[in-house]
Every structure is written in C-alpha cells, then in structure tokens.
C-alpha cells in the first residue's frame, strides 16, 4: 500500500495550459510541495476560482509530477472546468489541497501489469505507468476512447509501457469497438498479476468482471461528488463490502473486489 504524505493547502502558479484533445486540456502547475510527495493515483482538490459563486473545490487526479510541477489532464464539462480552461500561464489565483487520497498499489511480487483506460481515465494512470516502468514491472496498456480526437496521453503510455493497444468506438484510431474487446483478447493470451483501470464506470465494471474471471486482482479509481476531499463531510460515499467508505480518503482507488457498484452514487456527468 502507498503511504500517503500529509496533505497541505498550497498556492499554485499556472505554467502552461493547452488543449490536448477535443474538450480536454492539460494544465501544468507549479506546486513544489505537492509535486514532491504525490503518489500515483492520488488527487488534488483545486479551487478553480476566487469568485464565491462556485464554492466547492474540484477534484482532479495528478496525471504526472516532475520536479516542482504537477500535470492535470481535464475534460471541460461545466462551469468549474470552463474556468480552469481559461487560466493563462502566470496565473496565481488558484490553490490546491493535496496530495489527497489513497492511490494505486503494487501487489507483492507483481511483475506483469495491465492498465486499462477509458477516455479521461488515462489521467490518473499516468504516474502509475511511469512508476511501474521505473520499478521494472512490465505493463501493457489498453486504451479506449469514443474517437481519435478524444484519445488522451497515448504518447506517455507508448513511451513507458511495453505496448499500447487502442480501441475507438468509431474506429478512427486503433481497433473499431470497445476497449473491453481488446482486454478480453489480452486476458485470453497473456498472464497478468494485476489490473489497474479507470474510465466510465460501465467500462470499469466490464474490466472488473473480466479480471475476476481471469483470476487477476484488479484496482479501480472511482469518481464521486466531493465537498471536503479530506474525509470530513461524508458526501463521497462508496458502498463496499465493508460498509460505506469515503472515496476521498479510503479511495479513490479501491480493490475492485470490495466495491458494491451503485449507479446512484455516480457524479451527474459521469
């Protein structure tokens, strides 16, 4: 298990903010304290505006951390991410609370990993892919997206994992179809010690089922509405085999085996 570093409130400076796919931006933030301690799968709770109309922070996974910076891959959905997309380099109006939550972990003795991403699910798995490469664990990546223009972070996975297989719903990149078809084939021919997945919850469930069938332990990163992000408000509950847990501190990464999937818990835009 990862040992989480103490979170803190940290003001950030925007170093870059660019559109990297249809409706998706990559923002690079100077956040030395967070960058130094964040672990794969953790997230930051970002105050995207000084204005008082949006009172809640927005949770975003740390996609990558390098030196004093962290990178966030974000999809523009509503008012908060719209305002995030407008931030210019040099902006110092935002602060974050982080690093937060319980990230991915590497099971004892694992040497072959499968990473499965759907859409923006590629965001929280970036740091993990890098870390697996550093620790000499061979990973295969299966990436799904609706269409080529919405495929994100492919380059990162190409560069740090052994192989990347892509599927798009419309066939505009990689295979024509769902990523679950790719993984079904992979499970049939390769042996993995662990599966990591993030993406639309319907996709995650399919992957979890395949992993269970293949007898491979599986970890999932879940999204829930979050007010505090630090375990105090009980707005982000996930029903598990051990009762209601908090996605923000007990997750966002959970062992797939303990999650009792409940659609009503999903955020509205999922």
């Amino acid at each position, binding site marked *: 298990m990862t040992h989480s570093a103490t979170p803190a409130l940290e003001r950030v400076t925007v170093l870059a903010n660019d559109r990297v796919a249809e409706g998706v931006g990559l923002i690079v933030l100077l956040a030395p304290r967070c960058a130094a301690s964040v672990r794969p799968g953790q997230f930051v709770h970002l105050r995207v505006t000084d204005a008082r109309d949006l*009172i*809640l922070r927005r949770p975003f996974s740390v996609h990558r951390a390098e030196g004093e910076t962290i990178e966030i891959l974000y999809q523009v959905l509503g008012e908060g991410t719209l305002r995030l997309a407008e931030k210019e380099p040099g902006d110092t109006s935002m602060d974050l609370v982080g690093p937060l939550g319980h990230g991915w972990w590497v099971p004892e003795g694992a040497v072959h990993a499968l990473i499965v991403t759907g859409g923006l699910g590629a965001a929280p798995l970036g740091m993990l892919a890098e870390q697996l490469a550093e620790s000499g664990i061979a990973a295969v990546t299966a990436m799904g997206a609706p269409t080529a223009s919405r495929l994100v972070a492919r380059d990162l996975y190409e560069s740090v994992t052994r192989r990347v297989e892509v599927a798009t719903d419309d066939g505009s990149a990689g295979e024509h179809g769902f990523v679950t078809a790719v993984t079904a084939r992979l499970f049939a021919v390769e042996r993995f010690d662990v599966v990591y997945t993030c993406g639309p919850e319907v996709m995650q469930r399919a992957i979890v089922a395949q992993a269970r069938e293949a007898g491979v332990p599986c970890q999932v990163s879940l999204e829930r509405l979050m*007010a505090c992000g*630090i375990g*105090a408000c009980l707005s982000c509950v996930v029903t598990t085999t051990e009762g209601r847990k908090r996605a923000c501190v007990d997750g966002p990464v959970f062992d797939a085996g303990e999650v009792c999937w409940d659609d009503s818990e999903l955020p509205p835009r999922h």
Partner: protein
Amino acid sequence: MTQSSRPGTSPDMRVRIGALELKNPVMAASGTFASGREFADFIDLSRLGAIVTKGVSPQAWAGNDSPRIAETASGMLNSIGLQNPGVEAFCAKDLAWLAENAADTPVIVNVSGHSQSQYAEVIERLESERVDAYELNISCPNVDEGGMAFGTTCEAAADVVTACRPLTKRPLIVKLSPNVTDIAAIAQSVEAAGADAVSLINTLLGMAVDASKRRPKLARVVGGLSGPAIKPVALRMVWQVASAVTVPVIGMGGIVTAEDAVEFLLCGATAVAVGTANFMDPTAAIRVVDGLEGWCRHYGVAAVTELVGALEVDA
C-alpha cells in the same frame, strides 16, 4: 466607532457560553468538521474556540442515499442525513482521539435523535466522558423522523429540552431551524425550557434539479442549503433571536471571513461557527480566528465581547 483600547494591544478574545469559557468565539460547525481529526493536518486544533462534532445518535445511522450534495450559487445543498457510527463508537474513536490530540479545545457534541428519548440516551451515555457541552440538533432537515420536526414548533422544541435538561449540568445548546415563521418564538420557548444557549442557523431546506435529466440532484430530493448564499438570512435571524432571548446566541450561516464573523457578533451572537467554509479552505476556521483578533487590534477593540450586539441602529 468605539475605540476602547489603543490599536495594537492584545485584545481579550474570551467569551462565555453559559458556564463554558472559550478562548475565542470561533467554533467549527457541526457536520462540517467531523471530529477535527481530518483538519489536524492543516490547522492547530487547539487554537479553535471549540469543536462541535458531527451529529451523534444512540445507534449507528447509515445516512441517506447518494448523491448527497449539490453545488448551488454561492452555496451547497447536502442531504448527508446524519450518518454516524453511534454514540459508543463515537466515544471509542472520536472522543478518545480528541482527548489525546486536542485536550485543551472544548468539545461540544451535536446530539441527534429520532425521538426525545434518543436525545436523552446520547446525553446519558456521554455524561461520563470528557465533553464540554451538548448541542441538541432539533433542526436537521435531512432525516425523516425527528430532526427538523422537533425544531419547527415551540412545543416540540421545548419538550426535547425539558427531556434532556435534568440529565446534565453541562451547557445545553439548542440548534435552531431557520425553516420557520418565527424563530424568535422558538428560541424563547427553548430558553424557557432551560437551554443555556441557542445556535443558529441550521441549513435552509432547498432543492436542486438536473434539468436535462429531469431529476432532482439529490437522491433525497430536498436537502439543506448552506454557505455564503444564506448569510443574509442567518444574520437577520441572529439579530431577531438575540433581541428576544437573554441566553447567548451562537451564530452561523455562510461565515467565510473574519469580517463575516464580526457581522454576526454585531447582530448579537456571542460566538460563531464556521461551517461550509471548511470545505472551501481547510484552514478557514483558523483564518477567522486570526482575522478576528486582527480586526479587534485594528479597530482598538479591547475585548471581543464589546462587539456583541454592538450594531448601531437608528431608533
């Protein structure tokens, strides 16, 4: 402007809620601060006037279904529904942790029940524990039985107090609901029944809708509105209640800054609580503590109690 001491000298920040003395008037509001543990990474809990815990019931409550929150303009709705592990687990985990990690911060336990006897049950169990005061939550809009139902008539509100009063010598604070026609009358009735203080406001009952899905945003349909949006209503109610009772008033509703806190004190609150702002900024409560002291220095206020009810209104 009263200038009762030279700017710069150290103001006396202490206030009293009945027999309880607080080192400053700034509390963390119930349900927004758990039992403080989650905030210990960010702030020094011992600098708070008091910690008000999440609502505690005799047995564990599971709370409501998800989604439980929705953001609204300058506010948020919640329908957490008093999820809590029950008073026994609360003593074992929360109070034990507090005793070890925040020994000199007064702890006020927010008490919940589906019936009068359940409120009593929680208090009876806690009498042997290190607890500094009780806050009777008769105003939670998020539970079906009890909760706000107790807080919307003078009789029901007084009855809960009458049931609990004989059980403890500790200060009994009653948390009032803003979802009423005449909050001052309810404050008077709980005062008459023996409350040592009143706290207000709890959340305003509200609702949010996802238009494109044609569905309510909260699984419970309705929930409690909190945050800056409700501050004007909260100030008005504190003002009305403070003029109607003699017991201390603890004011809350949308406090984010020290200036907000001053506004509540001027309207007659003896102490204040920071709620939703803890989610906006985990250091919010301490910023209010520091800011309030800074305010007193700047305006030459020798004792923060001078601000209480000091609003100047034309006759």
